[in-house]
């Protein structure tokens, strides 16, 4: 199993947000986590990626055979965990080329590989850019500065393509996207998806799942998964609304 989360409890500033979260993800699978606002979906993503301030009070996160609780976020990233941010951050003055080259070479250094040559890197950047249909020159633009909402999300998928992660978590990548951008983002994910990697897609809406077809759908409420099923569960949820989830929880 690629990722196995057991009885995860997470607090922020003393307030418990995740209350016994369980999830197993195998290589090659696509999972969707759905649920109303404030149920702890983003907290879960932050805890798995190792963000500071998210205190794990109980439980284990097993990834590739080791419990990664307490591991620094950059090490988790270099082990192949990627997060597509809900709100990508702007870094003024730092070009995408410089940023990605630093990221790619950090991972290579971690793996004991020499830095990638400029020629290979440039080629790779061009190729991955095409995958998410970013046609304009990206290399000299500053990280997310002046990007539209759609461009920011495409840029996340572009970075995912560059880093070739084994586990990708997409945190509401679909929010604020028009239908064209949604299609491009989903296309990127589908091209990257293979039998060795896995995706966890966090979303509010069933709409994204028309494009990225999940193997499993989990419904989250009040800090834990209250119902799991296949893709039909997403449709059922859409039909019955989140009020239905609350009843499930009771």
């Amino acid at each position, binding site marked *: 199993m690629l990722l196995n989360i057991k009885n995860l409890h997470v607090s922020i500033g003393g307030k418990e947000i995740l209350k016994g979260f369980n999830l197993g993800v195998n290589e090659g699978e696509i999972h969707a986590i759905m649920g109303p606002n404030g149920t702890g979906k983003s907290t879960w993503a932050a805890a798995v*990626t*190792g*963000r*500071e*301030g998210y205190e794990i009070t109980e439980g284990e996160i097993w990834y590739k055979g080791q419990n990664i609780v307490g591991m*620094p*976020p*950059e090490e988790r*990233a*270099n082990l192949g965990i*990627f*997060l597509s*941010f809900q709100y*990508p*951050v702007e*870094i*003024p*003055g*730092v*070009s995408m*080329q*410089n*940023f990605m*080259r*630093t*990221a790619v*070479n*950090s*991972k290579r250094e*971690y793996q004991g590989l020499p*830095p990638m040559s*400029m020629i290979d890197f*440039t080629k790779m950047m*061009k190729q991955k850019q095409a995958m998410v249909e970013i046609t304009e020159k990206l*290399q000299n633009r*500053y990280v997310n500065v002046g990007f539209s909402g759609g461009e920011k999300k495409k840029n996340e998928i572009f*970075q995912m393509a560059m*880093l070739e992660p084994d586990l990708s978590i997409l945190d509401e990548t679909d929010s604020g996207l028009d239908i064209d951008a949604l299609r491009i983002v989903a296309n990127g994910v589908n091209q990257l998806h293979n039998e060795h990697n896995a995706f966890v897609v966090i979303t509010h809406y069933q709409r994204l799942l028309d494009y990225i077809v999940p193997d499993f759908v989990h419904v989250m409420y009040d800090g834990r998964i209250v119902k799991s099923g296949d893709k039909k569960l997403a449709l059922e949820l859409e039909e019955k609304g989140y009020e239905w989830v609350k009843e499930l929880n009771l």
Partner: protein
Amino acid sequence: MESNPKENIIEEVTNKDYEFGFVTDIETDFIPKGLNEDIIRLISKKKEEPDWLLDFRLKAFRHWQTLKMPTWAHLTIPPIDFQDIIYYAAPKQRKAKSLDEVDPELLATFDKLGISLDEQKKLSGVAVDAVMDSTSVKTTFQETLSKHGIIFMSFSEAVKQHPDLVKKYLGKVVPYTDNFFAALNSAVFSDGSFCYVPKGVRCPIELSTYFRINAANTGQFERTLIVADEGAYVSYMEGCTAPQRDENQLHAAIVEIISEKDAEVKYSTVQNWYPGDKDGKGGIYNFVTKRGICRGDNAKISWTQVETGSAITWKYPSCILKGDNTVAEFYSVAVTNNYQQADTGTKMIHIGKNSRSTIISKGISAGHSQNGYRGLVKVVPEASNCRNFSQCDSLLLGDQCGAHTWPYVECGNDSSILEHEATTSKISEDQLFYCNQRGIPTEKAIGLIVNGYAKDVLNKLPMEFAVEAQKLLSITLEGSVG
């Protein structure tokens, strides 16, 4: 798509302390400690100076005796015993005409600093005047320059070879009455660089002076004078380092720039004097007066500085925009870490009509340091239609450091427009986590973000310097975030 060497430099930087802290073992000619008229006469005699220059020194010294050290800056300066300093120290050798005559120990020192004095090996085509303690060791590319009629030599040489030019311009932008440290420098200055670019000449190569303090218990008081005659252009760079010592050393320099009608002078510094250790012990006191004048119409001066060194910095590279349609620029990155203190900024004095000035100041404070921007923009009533744009940004790393801004504005007429923007920010947790999540460790991430923040200024530096400056920024901030 081409690779940009200004980028990606950060990854080359590994854990480093102050890299230039070594001492060269070389026989040095010292004069006795202390400061009085006899000492000044002795310095002047050692340098075989004409009477008018001795007279200038003595006048400056007598004026200095009437002054008190300024206390208005936001700096805590321990008392300095000016009688406990050696005012002249020189490596024992004569100025060399050819490279073979230079002491190999000195050549090795400059090689170690990355400054090659061998013209054959020099690829980048930058003429260098290398100054160790009180004297100039060697000036390269003399022949190439003299073909264009450009004078670039040590100050002492210039006094001998071009006394009329030196006399004409010395002290005209920074008179010895200007301030305490300017008076002190005028009394005891030892060497420095002199540069004159004649009418209509564009200097084909970058000029640079490299200052090195080596001897202990000495002060360094150099003087640089740059003149661009009508329609001339020159780009000038200055670099500096000093050995790592427990006691503080005083550096009080003067730089004067004169830009005549239609002329342009670009002046860039990477200041990397020894900053003291992590507990604030030792380091250079850098009390420097730098000023330029755009004397004729359409003249232009730009200052670009990257300040990473020194225990205490007190420095305000300024411009007097005297001619009409003159342009002045000040681009600065000042980084302080540990217990460093910096009070730095600029003055833009608009006297000519339609004159324009730009100020971009980026302060970065870390550790327990204090970092201040102090600036004056003054427009006299006659100077109509002037423009100034000032942007002063501060970036804080950690919560033990301080960032301060004191912008003064005096506008004497209604037709001028002065703009001022200021921001204070911290490197956000969000930015760091974003980098971490992409596999970039925190130290590297800070290097990236800080270089990005300073990019507007770094882009103004000549290429040779930009690479150096980026490395320095990262090294200076090593270990500043836990």
